[in-house]
C-alpha cells in the first residue's frame, strides 16, 4: 500500500494538486462545510427518533426532508476527499485514523441506505410517533458514529500524536 501511495504521489496528477498551494485549504474547507450538512442531516433524523425535534412530523417526512442534503453533501465529500487523498497519498495511507474513518463511513452509508428502505416501507407511520428504546439506542449510536468520523478526519493530521506506535508509517 505504501509503494502504491508513493507511486500515486509521484504521478503528474498528484503533483499538479500538490503544487497548487491554495487548492488543499480550499478543498478542506469545502469538505468541512459538507460534513456539517451530512452530520446535521443525520442528527435531525436521529433527534426526531429521540423526540427532540419535529415530533409533530412523521419520521418518513423528516428523512425525506434531509436525505437529499445528506447524499448530495456526502457526494461532494467523496469528490473533495478523493482529490485530497491523491494530493497527499502517503500521509493518508500512513494514518490509522484514515483507515478507521473509511471503515466507519462504509458502516454509516450502509446503515443510511438500510434506514432509508425501512422508512420507505413504514411510510404510513403517524405524526407524533414515539419510538422504542431500541430505535433510540440506534439513533444515539448514529450520532456518535458520525461524530467519531469527524474526529478521525481531523486526527489524520495528528495521527502520530493520537495513535503513537499504532501509526502505520
Amino acid at each position, binding site marked *: 500500500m505504501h509503494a502504491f501511495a508513493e507511486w500515486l504521489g509521484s504521478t503528474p496528477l498528484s503533483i499538479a494538486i500538490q503544487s497548487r498551494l491554495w487548492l*488543499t*485549504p480550499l478543498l*478542506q*474547507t469545502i469538505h*468541512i*462545510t459538507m*460534513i*456539517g*450538512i451530512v*452530520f*446535521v*442531516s443525520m*442528527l*435531525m433524523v436521529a*433527534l426526531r427518533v429521540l423526540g*427532540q*425535534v*419535529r415530533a409533530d*412530523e412523521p419520521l418518513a417526512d423528516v428523512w425525506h*426532508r434531509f436525505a437529499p442534503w445528506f447524499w448530495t453533501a456526502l457526494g461532494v465529500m467523496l469528490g473533495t476527499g478523493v482529490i485530497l487523498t491523491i494530493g497527499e497519498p502517503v500521509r493518508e495511507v500512513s494514518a490509522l485514523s484514515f483507515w478507521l474513518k473509511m471503515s466507519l463511513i462504509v458502516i454509516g452509508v450502509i446503515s443510511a441506505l438500510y434506514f432509508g428502505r425501512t422508512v420507505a416501507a413504514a411510510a404510513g407511520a403517524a405524526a407524533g410517533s414515539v419510538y422504542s428504546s431500541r430505535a433510540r439506542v440506534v439513533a444515539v449510536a448514529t450520532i456518535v458514529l458520525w*461524530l467519531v468520523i*469527524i*474526529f478521525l*478526519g*481531523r*486526527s489524520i*493530521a*495528528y495521527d502520530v*500524536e*493520537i495513535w503513537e506506535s499504532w501509526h502505520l508509517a
Partner: protein
Amino acid sequence: MRTSLKAVAIINALHIMSIVTVFGTIFIVDLRLLGFPNVKRSFMQMHHELLRWTWGAFGIAAVTGVLMFMVNAVTYHRNTAFWLKMGAMVLAGLNMVVFELGTMKSAPSWDKNAIPPSSARLAGALSIVLWVAVIVFGRWIGFTKGYDFTIPEDVQFDFPVQ
C-alpha cells in the same frame, strides 16, 4: 498543555466537531428564513427547536477555541487569518443581535409565510455567508500559522534562513 500534543489534537478535533454542528444547525434556520427548501414548518418552531443545539455546540467551540488560542497565543495574535475569522464571528454576532432584537419582534406576523420579509431573508443570507467565512478563515489559520510573520533576529537556527 503545549507539551501534550495529544491534548492539542483532541481539542482541535472537538473544535471541528462543534463548529460543523454550529454551521449545520444554523444553516437549516437560515434556509427557512430564505424560504427554502420546504416551508411547512413555521420559522419560530425551527428557531425554538434548533438554536439550542447551535448554542450548545457554539459553547464547546468557544471553549476549545480559547484553549487552542492559549496554547499558541503569540502565533495566533500575529495571524491575519485568525483576525479575519474573529471579524467574521463579530459580524455574525451583530447580524444575530439585529435580527433577534429587531426583525424577529414582528415574527408572529410572518413566521408561517413561505417567504419571510426581506430583512429576515437578508439576515439569513448574511448568516450563511459569515459562518462559511468563519470556516474558511479557520482552516486558513492552519495553513499560515507559524509562517506569516518574520522570524525574530535573535533566534538562532541550525540551517540558513532565507
